[in-house]
């Protein structure tokens, strides 16, 4: 029997503010971080995105000028976990970083004030390690849009298979850059307004930025949440389009449900990017799993798609939802818009809850499903 692994602490830095409780309260109040953005360093026209305002972090770390904007956000989140939970900075502590593109905003950017070597994720990890003086080299995961959720699964497996670590800090983050905006635009994947996950009139995603961090350990606290099970499977179908049958996501959910003993779910925190094909694929996969009736939300209309942070960010808010016994509505949904019906949450309903399913899917055909349960 493998040891149970728990999330016992968290930190969120988003455009809605710093701290996961604050973020949760703002979601229940219906606040969204997605707004029109006119910034010629990102695009030559207006986009709708969720960007962290610089005043939220400027001047809050030591030797701030030595660190890039994204490194600063990573450092702030890790510092917050260390301070809040009294986590030792020694060989028992491991940091897992999750990001799709790291400091890529520096690449060939005439406005960049850091050497281009900082584009390498291993350099970024090195800077973060040495800011705190961690003995262990951070483990960096870059696996498209499932990176954040996958990092939780990797943390769980590392803690279960080895006694080398007691404390694992899983930290995910990405920032909005011209690099990312232009790429998603080339795919015609950006919405012309605030995104509408699972809605009939959805027409693309919003990009967002956030850093989300989870403190993962074998030692539960009173309000800990257990990472019960994980499943992750590739579609083996297409590198940039979701599978029409939802095959990889279907297998991922089935595996997680099987490993968890087919438990009753209180809600599903879906990926729900609000692109036509992604949301349709998710509806099909959930239908195949017999989970269409479970209350479901996507948080993308609050935060945009925060890429390497998204799986973590949405898991942390799901944990708050579980603890508070309060379902988070899926902002932006009005009319059913998938070939298989879904039970999209439209009201902040209060009810006692025990567990939820988190899913994510990404380029390269990757998918993941995780089940979280109250202790």
């Amino acid at each position, binding site marked *: 029997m493998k040891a149970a692994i728990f999330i016992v602490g968290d930190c969120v830095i988003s455009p809605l503010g710093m701290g996961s409780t604050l973020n949760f309260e703002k979601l229940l109040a219906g606040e969204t971080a997605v707004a029109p953005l006119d910034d010629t360093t990102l695009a030559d026209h207006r986009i709708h995105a969720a960007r962290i305002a610089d005043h939220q972090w400027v001047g809050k770390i030591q030797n701030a000028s030595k660190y890039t904007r994204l490194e600063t956000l990573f450092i702030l989140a890790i510092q917050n976990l260390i301070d809040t939970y009294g986590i030792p900075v020694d060989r028992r502590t491991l940091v897992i970083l999750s990001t799709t593109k790291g400091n*890529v905003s520096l690449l060939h950017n005439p406005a960049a004030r850091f050497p281009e070597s900082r584009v*390498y994720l291993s350099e970024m990890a090195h800077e973060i390690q040495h800011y705190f003086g961690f003995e262990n080299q951070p483990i960096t995961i870059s696996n498209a849009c499932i990176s954040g959720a996958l990092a939780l699964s990797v943390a769980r497996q590392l803690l279960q298979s*080895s006694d080398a670590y007691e404390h694992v800090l899983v930290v995910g983050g990405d920032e909005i850059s011209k690099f990312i905006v232009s790429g998603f635009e080339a795919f015609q994947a950006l919405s012309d307004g605030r995104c509408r996950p699972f809605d009939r009139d959805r027409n693309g995603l919003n990009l967002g930025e956030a850093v989300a961090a989870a403190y993962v350990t074998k030692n539960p606290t009173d309000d800990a949440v257990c990472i019960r099970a994980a499943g992750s499977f590739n*579609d083996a179908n297409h590198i*940039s389009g979701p599978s029409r049958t939802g095959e990889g996501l279907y*297998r991922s959910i089935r595996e997680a449900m099987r490993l968890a003993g087919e438990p009753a779910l209180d809600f599903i925190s879906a990926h729900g990017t609000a692109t036509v094909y992604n949301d349709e694929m998710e509806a099909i996969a959930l239908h195949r799993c017999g989970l269409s009736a479970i209350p479901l939300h996507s948080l993308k209309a609050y935060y945009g798609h925060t890429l390497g942070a998204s799986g973590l960010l949405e898991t942390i808010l799901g944990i708050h939802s579980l603890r508070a016994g309060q379902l988070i509505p899926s902002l932006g949904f009005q009319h059913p818009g998938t070939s298989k019906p879904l039970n999209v949450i439209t009201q902040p309903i209060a009810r006692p809850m025990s567990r939820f399913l988190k899913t994510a899917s*990404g380029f390269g*055909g990757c998918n993941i499903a995780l089940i979280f349960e109250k202790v």
Partner: protein
Amino acid sequence: MDASPSYIQSYCTIRDRSIVLNGTIFLKMDIATPLADFLKSAYRQLDIDYPKFHKMDSLCKAIFIATELMARHSGPYASDTALIFSNRSSSYLSDNKHATGIFDTENQTASPATFVYTLPNIALGEISIRHQLHSENVFFIFDRYLPEFLVPYTEAALDDKQIEHAIGGWTEISEHTCDLLLYHIGKLGSIPHTVAKLKRIYNEHE
């Protein structure tokens, strides 16, 4: 103690301008050959018809060639073969190409065909399609090949998921250089899947 419950079924290294499968040279070209030409020659020598190969970036091409060669020796791969890869530069070659296009003052361009390759795990998607692998993928970024992490991680992944096979290793590519070691892991065999053995294999490529 470096005991291991798994064994290396086959392994492939690509370095400088040579490709070695299980210690035997598959292709060796002049060191001055451009990397793109070298990878194209390797594809031709595989003698397969897979037009998607030509759309891939060099990271995907090198990984595609190595997994194709290993499959000839120890394949076909089981569909639940886990993919546990790592490198230093992530998808730098395609990142560089995309960033060059978007900051070009004369003619700003962004192409979906380039952007899709700006994630390292796209290569895992490519080989999953080719070999029909429905399995867990993870792409780690380290500053060097780190069997000290990858070997125990891979063993734990096999144990955790109750599966028998994995493909993993180090796949570092830059504009002119290639430093790749991939291996196919299974439960039976004679070459132990250990840190010491993999360090030896990584260092012995001629």
